[in-house]
């Protein structure tokens, strides 16, 4: 079984790739697939901020099952408004 994974914003920089095809086992959830990626891409290992998951371009819960051929997107929150007023 294979899934196509898409990484957005900071995740892409941490992993060094924006998309990949990964071998997945039976019965994995979207969150499981992210944990799998954390093993494959060491840069992702330390990521501990919230994440949004989308399977086949539809937002899903972390427990959503991933099936063969699915496209799984991982979307981190972004806050910038270009005002850069943090101090």
């Amino acid at each position, binding site marked *: 079984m294979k899934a196509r994974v898409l990484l957005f914003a900071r995740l892409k920089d941490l992993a060094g790739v924006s998309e990949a095809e990964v071998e997945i086992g039976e019965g994995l959830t979207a969150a499981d697939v992210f944990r799998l990626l954390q093993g494959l891409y060491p840069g992702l290992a330390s990521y501990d901020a919230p994440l949004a998951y989308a399977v086949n*371009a539809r937002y899903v819960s972390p427990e959503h099952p991933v099936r063969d051929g699915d496209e799984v997107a991982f*979307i981190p929150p*972004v806050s910038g*408004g270009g005002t850069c007023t943090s101090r």
Partner: protein
Amino acid sequence: MAVNVYIPTPFRKLAGNQAYVQAEGQTVQEVLEHLARRYPGLATMVFDQDRRIQAHINVYLNSQEIHSLQGPDTPVRDGDEVAVIPALAGGQVLTPEQVMRYSRHIIMPQVGPVGQRKLMAARVLVVGAGGLGGPAALYLALAGVGTIGIVDFDVVDLSNLQRQVLHQNDDVGKPKTQSAKETLLAYNPDVNVVLHEAPLTSDNAMDIIPQYDIVINGADNFTTRYLVNDACYFARKPLVDAAILMFDAQLTVFVPGQGCYRCLFPSPPPPGAVPNCAEAGVLGALTGVIGSLQAIEAMKLILGIGEPMVGRLLLYDALSGEFRVVKVRRDPKCPLCGDDPTITELIDYEGFCGAPFPGRDEA
């Protein structure tokens, strides 16, 4: 026949504070009579004692003035739009200069003179006069959006000028609200710019946000982002939300009851876990793209045209040049807009996000 009736701002409080209401009938007259029965306050505004449409009320069917059709007897079809526009003192009728200025909008049937008046009657709040808020406010001002509110507490810094189009070299050191107002009025003196020179906080959000029809979020921090989300939900205001960092952007529209930021991200990242623009940088032109898209979404909401980005999250990666759209929806378990909400009023956002509102502790 069920049609949508556009209620202009001055009449809105007579119609349950709704911009659009559904009404039924075979003709424009019947539709308006149906509306008048449901909202008696509107009846006296629209009709005279003989149930004739008042002389100072212009009625439009799909952007065409009904006297150029068959008057009040003009038949309507399912899904038609009827607009009831009063000729008020204060320039509700387009002047020749306005007709010329906005001609490239008015010439499009989706806008027309009715749409232009909707824009001129609209009130939009822009949170943050920075990278996103700048182009958003600029295009709204050029389009003649009648009232543009701007919330910001900051002063213009040299490092802002790489992307913040409202501010110029000579503005460094000036309050951003002041600089924004000068720029917007220089482009179009026809608009009213209202300044809220303070950080948006739990103390003032419910005073400011209810004064507007639509909110555009250009906040640069999670504390303000959650506050704006919650306050817009409580005030029942559509929120055109966007965020950017480096080469990436996210944009969506939240309509109360159809999902909110907390449905996407129920809790904020721990402080420092997600870098901000000052730490990680942002491509200047990206703010122009996304701020302009926010202006477009706001105008679609005002005009009632197209498919607003409600229930869809746009992800733009400037480096790959790819736009992707992910379908999102209201989470029944959302603590704010879910079936069993635990957040029923504004909370302590600084505690929730573990970070103060920017500007709050400034000396």
